[in-house]
């Protein structure tokens, strides 16, 4: 049943954790599609006046494929969540009516839900373990878990093997991983929420083919939400249309329903195939005029150069990570030797596949990032009209100076909220720059009116829908009259109405004299641009230069891992023994009662260090904070002890050194995921908290990156920290608040994804959760523990001598 093409993708190396005799790739299991019945389903979350879903009644036959469409905010995603049974995971409200899948309420094993952002469903560091989450939740045996993992990865044609790191996947790879994760439970009903909206066209095509093949092979019923209909109309049998009040307005075979409701759908913003392409909204030019050129000696005439990027390269170092604290950092080359110019009254489109460096380049041009090499300079067109001379490199400009000249909307526009109400948010930059308040308010009100947000002026921006937040971010970027407007993927996942708004602002800004840069792969937006820069793997693709050799994949190679050196006892011990040994040292420290004991104990530790920690350069950087702590404890105890004795200070410092130095070094060898496995299986801690904690730990880098992104957004809006401590404190407080909000929202989405894969199934059923990887206790672990016990009890024994 497997084609040779598919077989090429199957890993040849058996997973280390499964005995060799079970290595075979079974064909994807075929299932009976589920019959879905919705009877008068109505859902009103608390806090909303109107219900989101109103009286929906549908019957879906086994094995059919249904496409659900409608305007933004019409409850399509909510409908999918109701079908998956995860509606009350993150919200409470009034729910009436019933949802029946094969005659009973939906459970995680029969229904699979794939969410819009596949990153929300990641729970583990390695591909195989991530896919194993579903089978683990339903208490399957280890052998069956891994055979399901293999078959799921095969059915989605996953391009890497199952030990690949999840953090190193592209957008398309993550999406396919999410699909494999939901297919691992062989569901009878597959629910997909906009599966290709975040992908570029090439990856979207591959994903679509993977979905069709997998669903067809398994025979499950498919219900999917999309608002780009043209690619899917030939793959589905039935189209259901919801309106903005949450009611079903059309339902029937695809061709006839489309024919009858195409116009109303297009008017409500759905991308109907064969409909006329949407036209840019008419935005008055006066709303986008750069403040500088308004008669104050600004950009002089069409085409004046505003910003130039000269031979810029960006090399990203891997940053602090919970998961790889003791692994060598890999550097990634995001851009190499790129030249770009932004001119007034011109719109440039930066195009290329995902990962080509479009976001990196636009961030450089906006002055929110610094290039590793090369320069991004402001030219005369931008510098004229500024009073005092500014440094040429724009990433050194102060926040108000940057805000005066630039407007930037990042890819995830919902992060860009800086005030309590919509109106204040758009006004914030103008106010910070000290522009004339009446004029600014008039301009903002007009802009909100044009973009359809004036009814929401007093609402908290966090309550807006996705499309509304995108338009809000756009308004915020242009309302203060910048000379350069930079938009990063402004139309990804957006409906026709928001597309029109984006295109309208782009055209009006360009005509008003602003230099516009768009990073996009949307062909309709590219058609609006005057020039194109094509990026491929971080370099500019010059169409005039003829065929070029394909670029080396992946940029710089990662630093070679250190040659296999003796890793010491700690390198061969499991996480539990390392942790227990560290804790025992902490408990033994207070028994050190005099200097002699302390020095002997520390001497013993130093003598044991090569055996336990291995041979190699001592990691001074890791030890530095600990040694600093020892020094500060010594000093403070000397200062404030009754007799100001030097020995008191030294004793206190050595006592701390007894547990700090080895503790830090041992802890750095612990792998959090393995620790979770050991805690769950050896110590029999409750499984769900451990799994939740490990899944959250994998989000550490993402949250850190979010903090940086928030700081960048505030900087380009003129709200960056001022030099005074109070200003910095206020900025940190605002960033903290923003980070926590994003954390809570992400936690909610993660909870939905995990519950849909059966996270809490073990609570209601009697089958406890199993663990895909074993937690072995080896002799080295016992040795480590014994050694820890001996060293930790030395002070106690000595003090009795």
């Amino acid at each position, binding site marked *: 049943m497997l084609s040779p093409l598919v077989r090429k993708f199957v890993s040849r190396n058996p997973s280390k954790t499964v005995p060799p005799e079970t290595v075979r790739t079974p064909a994807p299991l075929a299932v009976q599609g589920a019959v879905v019945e919705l009877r008068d389903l109505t859902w009103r979350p608390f806090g909303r006046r109107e219900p989101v879903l109103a009286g929906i009644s549908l019957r879906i036959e086994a094995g059919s494929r249904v496409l659900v469409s409608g305007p933004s905010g019409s409850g399509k995603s909510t409908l999918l969540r109701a079908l998956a049974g995860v509606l009350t995971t993150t919200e409470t409200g009034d729910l009436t009516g019933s949802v029946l899948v094969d005659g009973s309420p939906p459970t995680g094993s029969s229904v699979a839900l794939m969410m819009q952002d596949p990153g929300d469903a990641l729970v583990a560091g390695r591909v195989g373990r991530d896919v194993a989450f579903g089978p683990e939740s339903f208490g399957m045996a280890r052998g069956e878990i891994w055979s399901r993992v293999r078959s799921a990865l095969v059915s989605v044609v996953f391009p890497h093997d199952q030990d690949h790191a999840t953090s190193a996947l592209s957008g398309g790879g993550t999406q396919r991983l999410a699909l494999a994760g939901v297919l691992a439970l062989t569901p009878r009903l597959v629910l997909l929420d906009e599966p290709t909206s975040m992908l570029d066209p090439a990856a979207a095509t591959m994903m679509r083919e993977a979905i069709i093949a997998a669903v067809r092979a398994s025979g499950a019923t498919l219900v999917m939400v999309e608002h780009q209909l043209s690619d899917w109309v030939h793959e589905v049998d039935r189209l259901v249309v919801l309106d903005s009040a949450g009611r079903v307005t059309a339902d029937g075979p695809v061709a006839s329903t489309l024919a009858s409701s195409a116009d109303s759908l297009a008017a409500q913003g759905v991308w109907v195939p064969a409909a006329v392409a949407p036209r840019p909204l008419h935005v008055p030019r006066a709303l986008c005029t750069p403040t500088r050129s308004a008669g104050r000696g600004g950009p002089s005439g069409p085409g004046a150069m505003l910003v130039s990027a000269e031979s810029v390269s960006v090399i990203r170092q891997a940053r602090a990570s919970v998961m790889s604290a003791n692994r060598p950092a890999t550097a990634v080359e995001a851009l190499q030797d790129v030249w770009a110019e932004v001119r007034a009254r011109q719109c440039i489109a930066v195009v290329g596949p995902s990962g080509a460096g479009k976001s990196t380049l636009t961030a450089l041009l906006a002055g929110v990032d610094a290039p590793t090499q090369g320069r991004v300079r402001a030219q005369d067109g931008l510098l004229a009209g500024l009073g005092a001379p500014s440094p040429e490199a724009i990433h050194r400009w102060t926040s108000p100076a940057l805000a005066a000249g630039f407007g930037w909307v990042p890819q995830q526009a919902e992060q860009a909220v800086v005030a309590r109400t919509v109106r204040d948010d758009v006004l914030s930059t103008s106010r910070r720059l000290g522009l004339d308040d009446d004029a600014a308010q008039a301009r903002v009100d007009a802009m909100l009116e044009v973009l359809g947000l004036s009814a929401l002026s007093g609402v908290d921006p966090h309550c807006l829908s996705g499309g509304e937040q995108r338009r809000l971010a756009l308004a915020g970027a242009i309302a203060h009259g910048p000379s350069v407007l930079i938009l990063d993927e402004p139309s990804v996942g957006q409906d026709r109405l928001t597309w029109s708004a984006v295109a309208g602002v782009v055209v009006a800004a360009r005509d008003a004299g602003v230099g516009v840069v768009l990073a996009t792969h949307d062909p309709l937006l590219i058609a609006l641009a005057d020039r194109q820069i094509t990026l491929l793997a971080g370099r500019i693709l010059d169409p005039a230069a003829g065929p070029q050799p394909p670029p080396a994949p992946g940029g710089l190679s990662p630093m070679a891992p250190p040659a296999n050196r003796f890793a010491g006892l700690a390198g061969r011990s499991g996480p539990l023994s390392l942790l227990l040994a560290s804790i025992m040292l902490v408990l033994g420290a*207070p028994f050190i009662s005099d200097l002699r004991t302390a020095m002997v104990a520390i001497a013993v530790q130093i003598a044991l260090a090569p055996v336990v920690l291995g041979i190699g350069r001592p990691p001074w950087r890791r030890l530095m904070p600990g040694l600093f702590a020892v020094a500060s404890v010594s000093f403070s105890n000397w200062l404030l002890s009754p007799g100001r004795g030097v020995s008191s200070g030294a004793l206190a410092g050595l006592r701390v050194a007894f547990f700090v130095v080895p503790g830090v070094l041992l*802890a750095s060898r612990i792998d959090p995921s393995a620790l979770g496995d050991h805690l769950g299986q050896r110590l029999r801690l409750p499984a*769900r908290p451990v799994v939740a904690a490990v899944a959250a730990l994998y989000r550490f880098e993402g949250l850190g990156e979010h903090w940086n992104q928030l700081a960048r957004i505030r900087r380009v809006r003129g709200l960056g920290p001022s030099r005074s401590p109070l200003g910095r404190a206020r900025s940190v407080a605002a960033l903290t608040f923003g980070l926590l909000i994003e954390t809570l929202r992400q936690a909610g989405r993660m909870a939905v994804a995990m519950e849909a894969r059966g996270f809490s199934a073990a609570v209601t059923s009697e089958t406890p959760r199993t663990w895909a990887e074993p937690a072995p206790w080896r002799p080295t672990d016992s040795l480590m523990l014994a050694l820890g016990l001996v060293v930790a009890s030395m002070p106690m024994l000595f003090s009795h001598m």
Partner: protein
Amino acid sequence: MTQTPSNKLPRQNARTSRSARTTALATRPLMRWRGIDLITAAMLAVAFGVMFWGFDTFIYPILSTATAGFPPLGELMLGVWLVPAVVGALVIRRPGAALFTELVAANVELFLGNKWGAAVLLSGVLQGLGVELALALFRLRRFGVVVAVLGGILSAVFEIVFYEWQSYVPEYSSAWKAIYLGCGIVSGAVIAGAGGWLLVRALARTGALNAFPPGQEVREPQPV
């Protein structure tokens, strides 16, 4: 109007929409943590871990050299490390929330390689237990500013009396130990207690806590 069992909503104990000052409690039974409770507690802990990492790397060195001349003043920063316990308890409102959140945050610090090693886990347990005691004294029925401040104070007391007095400041004279404790208590009360309470209230107003009792307290009186 039919309701399927799995979609039936658990009863809420709050009298919502009658007055704005009701206290919404967690859905009973209290030891039945929902999936979202666990995941949100863990994610909040990791977010605080991100901020602790930043604090440790950029701010703590400056502040501790500044207070090197008078170390008990450095203890005025203790409250920052107690915030996850208070926030976790106020958001989730179940027994064990403070302990779990603080432990996961301590684990983040451990894996990142903070300066105290595994001792940070012991600190985390003591700090979490302090807040749990405060909640238990009010029988898990009140979650206002008083409980939060008391939680901050008890958390600081547990941490200092049972751990820091023995490990970091064993040689101080009794008077200095008392001053050290006093600074810790003030910090716990103000930064963790009052600060944590204000933070939870502000988060509830943005609608980010809609799945939890603080969000329910804010939402139903003012539907959008």
